[in-house]
């Protein structure tokens, strides 16, 4: 089984690279064979990735959430699976190249640096923690997809506004669809993050007894959650649409990534288990 996991670990970035090639070719050239193959290739990649995660869980006897590089492969999987789902329900096929780029890079970094944690702390074996981490990862994957659609909205908006009718103009779906996809992904991400925070707060006193409400990661997560909550409320209350909301989705995601990075590198947190 060890060999299978190792082989799949090397295979996955190649599969994601192949997907980028197919989606890229289909984006820049319609009526190509890539047009017909890409969705099937994505489905196969998602299935292989899922098998890899399951085998890894069985082999090491814990879910792949114990190191940043295990988490990265789970995020890559979540992005690819979320995109497959979105493509299936929206029938919009022109955006895969952009959405799958982060999945590809997350997987490459994971493949190069992943290793098993020799001793897994007992705390990481809790079911509540598993639920908390899964919701958080799904949430971050969804807001990443939402931000990517926001970015595509801004690119197309710029093309139309400035009479620069590039390949972006030709291949992307219309502004309203991009806005709707960005909003739906972000809303889904927000719901997942809310669940993650809720479950985390529930699990904290059980796991530690003494509660660290001043923990930097906790404050950072709440800050991100409030940012998204304000954005979603503004859309509803102030009737924000279009460019404003796209800018909000993209900037909120950048701030979220930035704050996670700052917290992880510069502050000590009880959240570090490895």
């Amino acid at each position, binding site marked *: 089984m060890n060999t299978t996991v190792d082989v799949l670990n090397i295979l996955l970035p190649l599969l994601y690279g192949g997907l980028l090639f197919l989606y890229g070719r289909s984006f820049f050239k319609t*009526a190509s064979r890539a047009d017909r193959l890409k969705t099937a290739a994505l489905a196969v990649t998602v299935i292989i990735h899922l098998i890899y995660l399951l085998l890894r869980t069985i082999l090491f006897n814990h879910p792949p959430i114990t190191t940043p590089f295990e988490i990265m492969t789970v995020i890559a999987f979540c992005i690819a699976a979320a995109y497959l789902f979105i493509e299936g329900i929206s029938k919009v096929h022109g955006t895969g190249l952009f959405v799958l780029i982060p999945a590809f890079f997350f997987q490459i970094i994971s493949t190069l640096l992943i290793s098993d944690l020799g001793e897994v702390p007992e705390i990481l074996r809790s079911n509540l923690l598993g639920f908390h981490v899964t919701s958080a990862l799904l949430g971050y994957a969804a807001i990443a997809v939402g931000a990517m659609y926001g970015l595509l909205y801004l690119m197309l908006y710029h093309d*139309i506004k400035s009479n620069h009718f590039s390949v972006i103009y030709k291949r992307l779906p219309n*502004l*309203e669809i991009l806005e709707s996809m960005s909003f739906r992904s972000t809303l889904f991400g927000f719901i997942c993050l809310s669940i993650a925070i809720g479950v985390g707060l529930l699990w904290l006193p059980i796991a530690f007894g003494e509660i660290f409400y001043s923990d930097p990661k906790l404050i950072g997560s709440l800050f991100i959650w409030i940012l998204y909550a304000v954005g979603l409320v503004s859309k509803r209350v102030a009737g924000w649409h279009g460019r404003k909301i796209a800018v909000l989705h993209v900037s909120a995601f950048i701030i979220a990534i930035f704050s996670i990075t700052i917290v992880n590198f510069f502050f000590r947190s009880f959240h570090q288990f490895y």
Partner: protein
Amino acid sequence: MNLLSIGANHRTAPIDIRERLYFSEKELERAYEVLLNKYGFKEAVIVSTCNRTEIYTVTNPFTMRYGDLLNFIKEQKNASDFVKPEYFYRQFASGAANHLFSVASGIDSMIVGDIQILAQIKDAYYYAEQKKTTGFLMNRVFNTAFRVGKRARNETEIGEGAVSISYAAVELASKIFADLSKKRALLIGAGETGELTAKHLKNKGIGELRITNRTRQRSQELADRIGGRVVEFENFIGELKQCDIVISSISSDEHILKAPMLQGIMKQRGSEPLFIIDIGVPRNIDPACNKYESVFLHDIDSLKHIIDRNLEKRKAEIPIIEKIIREELVELFKWYNSLKLNPTISDLRQMFEFIRQAEVEKHINRFNKDDRELLDLVTKRIVNKLLHTPMTTLRTSNGDPQEDTLSHISTIRKLFGLERKD
């Protein structure tokens, strides 16, 4: 292949000549009669559109009759005084097929990738078929042309992108709005391009069309023609609160909509996008209106920019289509060359002999040793008798196949699966 064609198009003849060469449906009826009865052509198809008039016929290779076809056109169109031979191109065999395929694929059109031409060729062919002026060769050539046209559209981007101002405007609207049936459009002015744009929006299912013009009567006439609700010109600014698309093509020396006038409207609209197409010359809308975040203002120059880019992209597809045409020409001539008498007779004999031998081998053990020779002899006789009549019919042409013989050969190859051997 005895295919002969003659024609004049936008490259060889000026528009006034093309107009005079055009065959109406009424004229076509008589034209086919004359072509067949007076000039003695067995097969003919006349393709006549606003940009080209072409005649495809099947003729004897030793007496190519371009002169007859030219005389026919002069006679039918009373054109002796204005038709010059240099207006016409003449093609034979692969040249004629190649030209027809280029026309069907849209690469020979005035606007490269014109999607209407394939339908026009189909109409011309079906009309000829109805008049019984097409035979097995013309059928094959035209069906191949339809396949070329279909492949060109499916395998390339020759028909992609708008190439007229009105279509470019609608294409742009479809890049902003997801569902035009939930949108309202306001047409200001009753100009031709504005009307065309409004018609395209209607065809795309726009939710509601409102029309305004300085002269109410003209608005009403347009509304009656294309459907829509007339609004007073004096109130058109107020209409902008509710409309999502504005098409302006009014004749005016100054801007009818200035940026400050739009400020209040945009506040009321919130972030709802407003797409304004200004096709008036001089421009009707103040370009400063584009400064508002949710306003997408496009004038005739930006629409022309879209058209130019689309045309460039279409032209870039021509080499791929030429490759498709070459492939189809090769297939067509492979088929045509297979219609030779002796190889067909030989193929047919081989196939029957193969079946006979296989059956004999399968059942030979059920016969006594003495009967086996007899079995071989009897089955050979059966095969010979079965083949006798078809072989005799085929050989009556004596190695110089006429259209009927070619048709028989084609049918036999198809029925007995001999085409697969090619």
